[in-house]
């Protein structure tokens, strides 16, 4: 019996010890710091600029990950197995920290570059890091103005060891048309894989509205490609239908911002007339008031 009691006591003591250690470990972390996570992306745009975007999310009191504002993110590039600090940036309200990368990033043997994003010694967020490896790729977009078939061709190439461009086969390219507030898929199935020449092509539809002269901007993108990240290019051509702009976009009508003239004239005449009479009454009151001064002057003269 005694041995059982001793065993239970020992078990409780060990459990208590572990709980104590666990609590102590929890307390050893800096109080008030939130657990954070980084999503790192790479973008190469049509103007050949390269950017790294780190989206930071941190756990709130409800245990949900929400965008972390104003977190300092350090961006490193790995060069000869060592991390070199590129830039630092603070996250905005959406939790995004963006830096523009240099054009000649140091490459490893596999011709890839490695970018590391870190939160280090931040007052609000726990330390965390994320890295990405991508190869540099070019996306060339060709629109031939003389092509009656209106063939849009995008060619994906990567840089070989000798510096030559090598076509990339099997890369998925998505085609869009630029609109005022965003992009629209150029065709229903707008994802096309490149062939052995690294080319993906499709016939541009004839019924897409362009600007007033029919000019449209075609956008080709590789999105979240495992090897190359996000690469984009744009080209313009007069392949759209000319947009007929309404010469009078805001006609005078009850349901438009501009009121119809008869309504303006009627209301102005009616109420303007009434206010004119009011001002006439004010004028009469002023005359009544002025008479006081006149009579005072007369009275003085009389005296």
């Amino acid at each position, binding site marked *: 019996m005694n041995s059982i009691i001793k065993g239970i006591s020992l078990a409780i003591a060990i459990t208590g010890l572990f709980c104590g250690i666990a609590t102590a470990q929890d307390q050893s972390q800096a109080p008030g710091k939130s657990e954070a996570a980084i999503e790192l992306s790479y973008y190469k745009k049509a103007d050949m600029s390269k950017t790294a975007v780190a989206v930071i999310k941190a756990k709130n009191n409800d245990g949900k990950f929400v965008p972390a504002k104003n977190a300092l993110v350090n961006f490193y590039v790995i060069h000869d197995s060592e991390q070199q600090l590129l830039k630092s940036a603070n996250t905005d309200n959406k939790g995004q920290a963006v830096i523009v990368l240099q054009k000649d990033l140091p490459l490893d043997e596999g011709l890839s570059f490695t970018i590391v994003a870190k939160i280090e010694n931040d007052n609000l967020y726990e330390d965390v890091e994320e890295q990405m490896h991508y190869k540099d790729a070019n996306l060339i977009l060709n629109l031939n103005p003389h092509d009656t078939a209106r063939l849009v061709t995008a060619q994906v190439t990567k840089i070989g060891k000798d510096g030559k461009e090598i076509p990339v086969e099997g890369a998925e390219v998505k085609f869009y048309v630029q609109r005022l507030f965003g992009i629209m898929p150029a065709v229903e199935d707008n994802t096309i894989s490149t062939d052995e020449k690294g080319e993906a092509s499709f016939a541009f539809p004839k019924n897409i509205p362009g600007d007033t002269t029919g000019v449209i901007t075609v956008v080709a993108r590789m999105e979240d490609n495992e090897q190359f990240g996000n690469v984009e290019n744009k080209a313009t051509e007069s392949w759209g239908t000319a947009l007929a702009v309404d010469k009078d976009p805001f006609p005078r009508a009850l349901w438009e911002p501009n009121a119809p003239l008869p309504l*303006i004239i009627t*209301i102005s005449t009616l109420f303007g007339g009434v206010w004119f009479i009011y001002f*006439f*009454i004010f004028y009469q009151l002023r005359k*009544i008031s002025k*008479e006081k*001064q006149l009579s005072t002057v007369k009275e003085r003269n009389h005296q």
Partner: protein
Amino acid sequence: MANEKYNLKQEIETLREDCLRPTQKWGRSAQIWIGCLLIVMGWGLYCYIHQLRHGLGVTAMRDYVSWGLYISTFVFFIGISHSGTLVSAILRITKQEWRRPITRSAELLTFVSLLFGGIMPIIDMGRPDRLANVVIFGRLQSPLMWDVIAICTYFAGSSLFLFLPMIPDMALCRDRLTVCDSPFKKFKKWLYTKMSLGWKGTKSQWHRLEKSMTIMTIVIIPVAVSVHTVVSYIFAMTLRPGWNSTVFGPYFVAGALYSGSAGVILGMAVFRKLYHLEKYITPRHFDLIGRIALALTLIYAYLNLNEYWIPAYKMATAEGHLLSDLFYGSYSKAFWICQFGTVLLPIIIMSFPKGRSVTMLPITCIIIVAGAWVKRYLIVVPTLLHPFMPIQEVPGKWSSYFPNYVEFSVTAACLAGIFFVITLFSKLFPMMAVWEVEEGIQIEHDKQTAIELRTKREAVEVKIIGEQVKTDIEPIKQPTY
């Protein structure tokens, strides 16, 4: 004749004394009354600040009923404001001599009810700081914009219409206030001097004043009619069952005149009793204005019949649901009490001379005013609770509405504000247009004198003719045979 002149002078002097007496002393009861009003207004202000801080969610209004007690009260106050136009302008233009003692109180009621009526839509706004946007981004096509323009125009006109006949009275107050032994009296002297515009009563000043008053009398009537017509457009120009009516303009104007006339009668009765004006506001005045109120109630009843009978005959889907609710649903008690108790019953009462007596008429008018207020509520709220699209996927509470303490408190504060301004006015200025009543007495006196002179002249003429007849008669000659 010298004695008669003396009597006229004495009568006018008594009138002046009677009219100016209330402005010279603040009795205990007046102080208690003002204290009570200030308490109600203070509590209402506190509730309004609470509403401003926490939003309209503290009221009972929700998505569907966004125009509750506040907008109903707005329509009611604008209706009451027609009193000044009715009594003062219409009776002035038709040269009704008996109007003289009651025009001031009617014009004042117009001014004050418009002042507080205009505030009600601002109170109903969740963000009153955006009020300037109505002017900055206002669209002239919107009935709301017309309403703002019409109410501002009517308010300016009513202020002028109230002020113009006050000028000679202000000069009287100024001249009578000779001893300024306290800061308040000094303030009053200053106020009277400023407001009298240096009135000396010269021929030219009288000419200008009378010309201005004639013009304003003519102008204020269409402006007043336009205001309530435009208020009705706010409702009638939206696609909602119960509001989609072509008769809404005249219906609102008639309703306004009906409640406005009752408001004037109540004001008359109160000031007559409080300020001992029985000599000037006589049972004849009650009888005559009672007849007008009766005529207006009949017109209102006729338009009421049209407003409900025609859609009730058709019972079209959405209108049918609304009318069912009004006729035998959740609002039926209030609806039928309004129709029978506050329209038909007053018609019956006022049809009899005893119903237009000094005692009975004000009681009837209390019923009319209360009924008019409830009627405005019945125009606004049930329609909002019967939209064309069914109320769904919202909390159950949103499908019904009854004002809560915040709305009642703020509305009560506005009503108290009306009483407060009227009380202050009556303690500063005469509640009867002294010079107008004097003019009436003078006209009456002249008439009497003319009648007496004519009677005397006729008597003399009869005497002379009688004597002439006597001398002209030739003796009858005896026939000769």
